[in-house]
């Protein structure tokens, strides 16, 4: 009785988005971008470690690389993405049969395929080869037990889905639909996929297409994280959050602030301050003091209830829009921007450097836009981060791009993947976490034991 009308089609596609973030607190269902995604990517890399109040061994194991197949975070991310994929598959399977407006129909299928492409891209980056489930599960039988599909095949499907989305999604959404993926979002992910696969020319082409679109950098780095600028000109694709109605039932807000805020903020009524994860010393110290991004990203001391308080160490601060949410609510309505425009610029530079085995003018132009913005300290232009020049070698420029990405995207869910792509994973982690048990195998998560117990066709990743 479902999937008969246009309304059903809309409801089915809207349903996919709930699985991204927020969710029912007492169902232990949170949605992957609610916190697990960006927390895991930070802890697995050189930008995050457990905070003073960390209690959950599952997160500690990510940070010190003792994670095994029974790690609950690894299991939840897997579970959340496949729940989302099934919701997308249902829409993709059923909407074509609904008699409805054809433009809306292709747009809705485009949204579902964009999301499915995104989910598989995340999965393949985290778990390497993964089972490729392309239809909704209608009943269980022997065919429900899929083996892992080689990652190159998974990537083929991701590209197909994103290309469909690119061809069927509109340039922009307005009003109540603002925040849904656009064709630009699809192009951006096509670029990121291409970059991950080393298809440098495609990456260059797709980033250039997005650069021709309606995007730009906010003048001040801080503006990129203001709630007023959610779905703004710098956001190419974001996970939209909002407060929801009842804390006990739904957390539609995100944990972006809550997990990372210093415990000292609990003195403010209603504030979060779980102090569960903090940045590494390395990521804090890599910044030039005058770099605007340093003061926006971190806080080390603050005036709390009229008193100056020195925190136990640097804490992530950039998602806390203090004017919009003065008390630092535990579940912020601030969005998690998965691709900001500065990412497009830096990907563009990276692709061109690979194609030309060295910087080009266009590549320098892209990266220098990001550096220039970082010099803008709330209107004052600081004397730091000079424009990069053509004199850089291929390797120097590559290093510079990685460093720029490090500073630009602290705790935005990129770093672990960036280190893999640049082949610098163990090297950089050892610099930030000397003596840690990091192994090259940690570029991927283990396949969750529950899955291997349930489905004997699943092999384990190396090293677990």
């Amino acid at each position: 009785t479902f999937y008969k009308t246009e309304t059903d089609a809309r409801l089915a596609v809207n349903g996919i988005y709930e699985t991204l973030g927020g969710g029912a607190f007492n169902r232990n269902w949170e949605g992957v971008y609610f916190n697990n995604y960006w927390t895991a990517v930070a802890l697995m890399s050189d930008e995050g470690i457990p905070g003073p109040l960390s209690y959950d061994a599952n997160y500690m194991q990510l940070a010190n690389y003792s994670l095994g197949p029974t790690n609950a975070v690894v299991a939840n991310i897997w579970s959340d993405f496949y729940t989302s994929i099934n919701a997308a598959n249902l829409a993709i399977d059923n909407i074509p049969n609904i008699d409805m407006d054809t433009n809306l129909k292709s747009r809705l299928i485009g949204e579902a395929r964009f999301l499915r492409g995104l989910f598989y891209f995340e999965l393949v980056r985290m778990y390497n080869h993964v089972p490729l489930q392309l239809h909704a599960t209608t009943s269980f039988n022997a065919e429900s037990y899929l083996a892992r599909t080689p990652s190159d095949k998974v990537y083929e499907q991701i590209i197909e889905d994103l290309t469909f989305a690119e061809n069927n999604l509109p340039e922009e959404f307005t009003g109540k639909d603002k925040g849904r993926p656009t064709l630009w979002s699809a192009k951006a992910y096509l670029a990121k996929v291409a970059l991950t696969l080393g298809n440098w020319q495609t990456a260059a082409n797709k980033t250039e297409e997005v650069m021709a679109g309606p995007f730009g950098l906010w003048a001040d780095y801080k503006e990129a994280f203001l709630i007023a600028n959610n779905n703004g000109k710098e956001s190419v694709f974001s996970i939209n959050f909002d407060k929801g109605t009842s804390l006990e039932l739904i957390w539609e807000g995100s944990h972006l602030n809550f997990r990372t805020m210093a415990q000292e903020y609990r003195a403010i009524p209603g504030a979060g301050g779980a102090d569960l994860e903090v940045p590494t010393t390395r990521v804090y110290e890599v910044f030039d003091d005058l770099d605007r991004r340093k003061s926006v990203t971190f806080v080390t001391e603050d005036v709390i209830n009229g008193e100056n308080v020195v925190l136990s160490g640097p804490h992530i601060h950039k998602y806390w829009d203090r004017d919009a949410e003065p008390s630092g609510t535990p579940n912020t309505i601030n969005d998690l921007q998965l691709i900001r425009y500065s990412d497009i610029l830096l990907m563009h530079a990276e692709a061109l450097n690979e194609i030309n085995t060295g910087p080009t003018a266009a590549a320098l132009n892209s990266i220098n836009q990001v550096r220039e913005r970082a010099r803008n300290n709330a209107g004052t232009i600081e004397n730091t981060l000079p424009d990069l020049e053509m004199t850089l070698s291929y390797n120097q420029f590559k290093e510079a791009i990685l460093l720029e990405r490090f500073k630009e995207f602290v705790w935005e869910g990129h770093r672990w993947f960036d280190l893999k792509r640049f082949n610098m994973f163990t090297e950089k982690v050892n610099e930030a976490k000397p003596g840690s048990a990091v192994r090259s195998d940690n570029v991927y998560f283990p396949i969750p034991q529950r899955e291997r117990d349930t489905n004997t066709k699943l092999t384990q990743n190396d090293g677990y």
Partner: protein
Amino acid sequence: YSQSRTVKGIVTSGSTNFPLAFANVSIKYTPYGVSTNFDGSYEIRLQESETTLIFSYQGFKTQEVVVTKSEINIVLQEDITKLDEVVLIGYGSSSRKDLTGSIGSLKSKDLDAVRVTSVDEFVQGRVSGVVLTQTSGQPGGASSIRIRGTSSILAGNEPLYVIDGVIVESSNSMQSSGIADGPPINAMSNINPADIKSIDVLKDASATAIYGSRGASGVIIIKTKRGHNGEVKVDFDSYLGVQTVNKKLKLLNGAQFAHYINEANYNAGMPRLYTDPTAFGEGTDWQDELFREAIIQNYNFSARGGNENVKYALSGSYLGQEGVVQGTDFNRMSFRANLDFKLSENVSLENTANISRINFNTVNTEGSTGLGRGSFVSRTYDFSPLLPVVTENGDYTKANYMVDNNGSFVNTIENSNFVGGTALVNPLAEIALNESKGKNTRLMNNLVLKWELRKNLHFKSSLGVDLLFNDESVFRTVQLDFSPSRQANALRAKQLSSNWVNESTLRYTNTFNNKHNLNSFVGFSAQQFEVDNLSGIALGFPVENFGTDNIGLGEQPTIGSGLTKSALLSYFGRASYTYAGKYIITLTGRYDGFSGFGENNKYEFFPSAALAWNISDEGFMEDSSVFSHLKLRLGYGEVGNSALGAYSSLSRYRKSIHYFGGEPAPGFIPSSAANADLKWEVSQQYNAGLDMSFFDSKLGITIDVYNKKTEDLLLNLPTPLQTGYSIATINAGNVENRGIEASLDGKIFTGEQFEWSANVAVSYNENEITNLAGLDQISTGAGVNVIDGWQRLVEGGEIGAFFGYVSDGIAQLDDNISSIPHFLTETLVPGERKYKDLNGDGVINADDRTFIGNPNPEYSFGISNTFRYKAFDLNLFIQGVYGNEIVNFNRYNIEALDGRSNVTLEAFSNRWTPNNPSNTFTRAATGQRVARFSDHFVEDGSYLRLKSITLGYSVPASYMTKTGINRMRFYVTGKNLFTLSDYSGVDPEVSVGGQDNNLSAGGDFGSYPSTQTLLFGLNFNF
């Protein structure tokens, strides 16, 4: 014309002293006789040649008296041999002699000797083949019953309950809207045990097939007491008792704990916290704080009587039971009115009504974690003895804080997180400041019309209802809210579960030529179930004074409601043919349709056939001096299992919400996939039984052998998450239960002064998964204390078998550490646990797991002894199981030695240190270890327990002739006074997961402990 004379007198019953109406008084060697009147009186004329009167009454020993005077009063003695016993067989009754199936019976005389608070407790150890596990010691708490093993993996192993002809709701989850803490209240706890007249347990398929799709796990038929034609009988019974917790764990006291924390910190490279551990002294014993001596009291009053046309049985009872855990109690009021009316010569009406009201307060004693709300019981084990229950300024200590050298709290609610070890909330603070309570009202009524159409043809139609109102509320104060929002919250839910049933039968019975006896009927039944609920949740209370009474005061109220409906439609019949009382054949069939099944498989037919041969009635056995009775029974039947959610076969969706730029975009997301092929789980059962009695029926032995093959198992299959679902209800595979059960009844002494009778029930069951529908394995074992997937089903294995690592002692200083296989993701150091590398690949990983135990007892037994010496009576009941294992999940915390929770004295005394190279317990080191499920936590679960002992004294009748009291008896009962078991936990009779625990059977984690009880009682009747 001969001289005649008149003889008159009164006939009374020897056991009750009541007059016997309609007793036969006949003249020997003549066809003449009379019946006694209502008052037991008779008058009869005898001719001169007639010298002897015969007094007889069904169920009593016949007496012959030579007439020597004109008034003869006779006391008839009851004559109940096992063969004449009436056994309820489902839509009818049978004498044991004519029985073809395997049925265990308990009569009120068996039941009166013991005091239970819930009806299901009666069967534990008293009926062979039945294993009852008290899964929670909470007053009114749940139990789990398995008749002939676990034959289904889905929640459908509980027997069907039929009370006074009505199939009632026996699922505990229907008793609760799921709001209150702790396990749900036992569904059978609504029934007053004192009202029960008999309990018959139908075990084999030939007996249960008449219940078709619901017969696979056995059927328990309960009959309550009814009125009689004769003088009113008034009964009063009361007991008062005290309950104490069975066993306390020996944990560290304050000084020992401080010493332990110092060492654990030091070993983890952290500073020692306490300069003088001994200064902390004894500290707080949290177990003493939580547990108490709890009072239990029960009053029961009944009156039964009537005349030829109206019979009544009225009763009222009150049970007040405190729990041994503070903050828990259970009160039940119940009323019964059983009325029988004779409307005309051939039409009668019977009405059975029961109303009960339960009020309960609960605390969380289920093992779940999250929000610091784990079991209060396990929290008392974990809590630091350095913390006071109440601080000096009168506030409750809020959570399991660390204390510094001066005894001050290191943590506060402000710097503790809302989940995990540090913020385990003080259970006593929760008891004092929070609330979790419920009220259940249950109304059961059944009206039966009986119409004798012709002499051999009876029509019967009934309309029954079972209504269960549940109202639960939970209030949590802001003072103990560790969640990021810091808000008080209140939850309230009401649920009405209703069950309507209409049944009609047409019965034909006749005897031809004195040899051929036919007893047959056909029937029709329609039953409808409905669960209707309404709930409200609110957060943030500016004032907390009104608790859940005014939930609208909350700042963010949310409401919800739901309705679930299902229906069952059935046609059934049975024909039983007996030839010369020797050969009996019974054929049964039931055609059931259930709305919950898939489109393609809604209906199923369940047949059975059984044969019985009363061998001792054969000519060649007549002179046997050994057997008083010998009977062989053979039966085969197919029965089903339909314990399935109403909508299991459909794909279901739930509402979702997402916001784009602050605007809601409502949607739907799938919550389960459809299964149009979902079908009946059918079990094929073979049974062979032998009933024997010896020595003039003083010794009776019944032996049954059975094989129960269940096909198309209904299974909540954990599915690969890549399908989008974590679980699916499917039919997969077969399981076989094979077993032997024997019961022995003996009247060892039957003297005037001294009597001794004994009953022994023993059963053996083995369980084997014979087919898994093509799957290599199914990983089960619901999450307990961060461990999941601890059970595994494989072909050839047993349901619930434990699957995990094999521990291999502790790594020692002189071990070559680098050569010891270990987990790649961890660094092994001396003092940590080693595991066996079962596949020899040099590393420990999931491939090194194997089967390390199973929760199913091989043997279960019960021994009941009843003695009477003059006015004293003594009943001893011993019960036990053998051959099962328990996973003691509590030990993950209390032996963790990880510097967080308190530990057992044993683990700490024997911990590994460089000077004490223990091979059992690890070193103490602050930090978290990855919890592994290994055989280290698996223990022998066998036990032998003195379940109850009752000593009674009946005041001799001669003392009471003037009081009007017929009988007065004082008694004292002890329950669980003695247990023999190697299990290190509090109680071997335990299981997480309550009634529906098939996928977590045999786990012990923070369950409500069982209790020792001492009762003093008084019983008298007029």
